[in-house]
C-alpha cells in the first residue's frame, strides 16, 4: 500500500489534513473575502453573533468584524508558525550536524550553548527578546525560533553521530572531499528524516507561543492575531465571552490539525520504512 493510501485510510490523519486545508483556505482567501483593513470599524460595538448576516460572528468592543479578524488572524498564525518552525529546523539541523560531525571542542561548545538555551524557559526568552527589540512579525518569528531550535539540534546531532561512521562517509574522506562538504552534502541530508518528523510538533508549539505572546500584547501591533483577539475580549469576558472563546477555538482546531496531519505523515512513512 502506498503511503498516500495508508494516510487516507487513517481517519485521524484525514481529519487533520481537512482542518489544515480549511485553515490554509481561510488564510489565502482573507483579503479576497474581507478586503480592506480588518482592524477598521465595521458596525456597532459588541454585536452578538448570528444577529446581522453581514457580520455573521458579530463585532468586538470597538465594532470590528470578528469573522474578518478571524480570517486575517489565520494568516498571521500560519505565517509565524511556519516561518518560526522552518528557522528552528534549519538552525537546529546545521548546529546539530556541525556538533556531531566535528566532535571534540566544537561539539562541546555547541552542546553547552544548546544546554544554556534549554535551561532558560523558551517563553521567557521570547518575551525578553521581543520586549528588548520591539514587536514586529519578524522579531516574533526569531523570538520563537530562539527557544525551539535546540530540540532539532539534539536529534540531528544524535543522527549524525551514527552516520559519520558509515562507509560512504569514509569513502568521501578518501576521495578528498572538504569536511564541510561531507558534513552538509553527504551527512546532513541523511540525518534529516528524524529531524523533519519533529516539524509538526514544532509548528504547533510555534503557533501556540505566537498566540501567547500576542495575548500578552507582544504581537505585531499592525496585524490581527488570535492571541490579541482573545486578550481584547478579556476586557468584556463577563458580558461577551464569545469574543475570547471563538478565536481560542480557531487556535485549538489549527494546532489539532497540525498535530493530526503531522502524526499521520510520520506514521505512514515510518511504517513504510519499517517494512522495506
Amino acid at each position, binding site marked *: 500500500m502506498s503511503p498516500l493510501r495508508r494516510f487516507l485510510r487513517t481517519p485521524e490523519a484525514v481529519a487533520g489534513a481537512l482542518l489544515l486545508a480549511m485553515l490554509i483556505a481561510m488564510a489565502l482567501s482573507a483579503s479576497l473575502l474581507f478586503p480592506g483593513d480588518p482592524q477598521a470599524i465595521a458596525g456597532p460595538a459588541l454585536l452578538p453573533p448570528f444577529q446581522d448576516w453581514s457580520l455573521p460572528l458579530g463585532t468586538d468592543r470597538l465594532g470590528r468584524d470578528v469573522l474578518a479578524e478571524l480570517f486575517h488572524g489565520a494568516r498571521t498564525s500560519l505565517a509565524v508558525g511556519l516561518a518560526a518552525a522552518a528557522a528552528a529546523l534549519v538552525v537546529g539541523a546545521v548546529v546539530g550536524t556541525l556538533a556531531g560531525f566535528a566532535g571534540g571542542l566544537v561539539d562541546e561548545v555547541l552542546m553547552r550553548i544548546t544546554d544554556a538555551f534549554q535551561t532558560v*524557559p523558551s517563553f521567557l526568552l521570547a518575551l*525578553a527578546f521581543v520586549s528588548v527589540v520591539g514587536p514586529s512579525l519578524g522579531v516574533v518569528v526569531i523570538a520563537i525560533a530562539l527557544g525551539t531550535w535546540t530540540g532539532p539540534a539534539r536529534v540531528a546531532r544524535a543522527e549524525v553521530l551514527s552516520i559519520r561512521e558509515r562507509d560512504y562517509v569514509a569513502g568521501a574522506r578518501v576521495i578528498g572531499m572538504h569536511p564541510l562538504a561531507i558534513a552538509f552534502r553527504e551527512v546532513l541530508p541523511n540525518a534529516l528524516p528524524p529531524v523533519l518528523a519533529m516539524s509538526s510538533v514544532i509548528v504547533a508549539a510555534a503557533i501556540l507561543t505566537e498566540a501567547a505572546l500576542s495575548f500578552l500584547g507582544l504581537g505585531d501591533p499592525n496585524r490581527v492575531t488570535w492571541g490579541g483577539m482573545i486578550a481584547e475580549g478579556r476586557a468584556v469576558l463577563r458580558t461577551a465571552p464569545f469574543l475570547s472563546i471563538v478565536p481560542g477555538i480557531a487556535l485549538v482546531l489549527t494546532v489539532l490539525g497540525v498535530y493530526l496531519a503531522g502524526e499521520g505523515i510520520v506514521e505512514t512513512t515510518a511504517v513504510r520504512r519499517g517494512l522495506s
Partner: protein
Amino acid sequence: MTRTLTLIRRRLVGSIFVLLIVVIGTFLLLEAAPGDAVDAYIVSTGGDAGMIELLRHRWGLDQSELTRLANYLWALLHLDLGQSVTFSRPIRDVILERLPNTLLLMVSATALSFGLGSALGIYAGARPGSFRDRFLSIGSLALYAVPGFWLGLVLIVVFAVDLRWLPIGGIETLASDKTGLDRVADIAVHLILPVSALGFIYLALYLRMMRAGMAEVWRQDFVLAARAKGLSRRRIVLAHVARNALLPLVTMLGLQSAQMLGGSVVIESVFSVPGLGRLAQEAVASRDTPLLLGIILTSAVLVIVINLAVDIAYAFLDPRVGAGEADA
C-alpha cells in the same frame, strides 16, 4: 554512593558553564536594549544632563563593556541582581518575594499532570488498540492543542463568572486576616483554576509518553515470561509493564520544568497570581529590562536545580544510570 556523587559532581561542573553562557547571553540582551537604567530612572523621576552624567558615573555605566560584564558577574557572585527601577528595591528581594507563589503553582500543576497523566496513560496502555485507548489518546491530543491561557479564561467564564464557585483570580482573599489552616484552605481554593489550566495541558504529554512506553514494554520477553507464569493481567500491567514504562517519565519531569515555568507566565497573568511569571510581564510592561533578566537568571538556576534533583532521583531508581559515566 560514590557513583551518585560522581554523577552530581559532573553535572555541577557542566551547570556552571551553562550558567555562565546564560549570564553572558542575558548581559548581551541587556546591552541591546534601547536606553539604560539611567534613562529609565530619569523618565520616572526627571533630571537634567548633569544628573544623567552623575548617575552614569555612579552606576558604572560609563565604563567599557568588558568592565561592566566583569562587574555584572562580580555582583552576581554576591547574589546581587541590581536595583529595580520600577519597584525601587533590590531585584533579588522582589524576585524572592514572588518565587514561592510560582513554586506552589508549578509543584501543584506538576503533581496534577504527572499523577493524573500517568494514571490515565496506564489505563489506556493496559489494553493497546482498545476503544478507551484510542479515545484517551485522541482526547489527550486535543487537550495538548489547547492554549493554556485560553483554557484559563474558559475556566474563569464557567466556574468563576457563571457558576460563581471559585474566585476569579489572585492567590488569596485580600485583607481577610486569615491565619493557619483557614489561610491554607483559602490559598488552595484560589489555586484550583490556575493549577488546572497549567496542569491539564501537560497531562496530555505524560499520558501519551506512558502509553507509548507501555506499548514498547508489552513487546519485551519478560512480559511473555510473566504471562507464561500465569500472572493475572492486572499484575502484569501494574508490576511489570507500567513500572518499566514509568522511568522515562521521570526524566521528562525535569525537562518539562522549563516549559512549565514559561507556561506559568501567561497563566499567572490570566489569574493575577503574584508570582515570578506575572512579575516578568510587569517588567515587560514597565520596560524594566534588568528585572526581566534577573527573572530569566533565576528561572535558569531553578531549572538546573530541578534537573539535578531529577537526575539524582533517577540514579536511585535505576541502578544502571551513571555506572558508565562514573567509570569514564
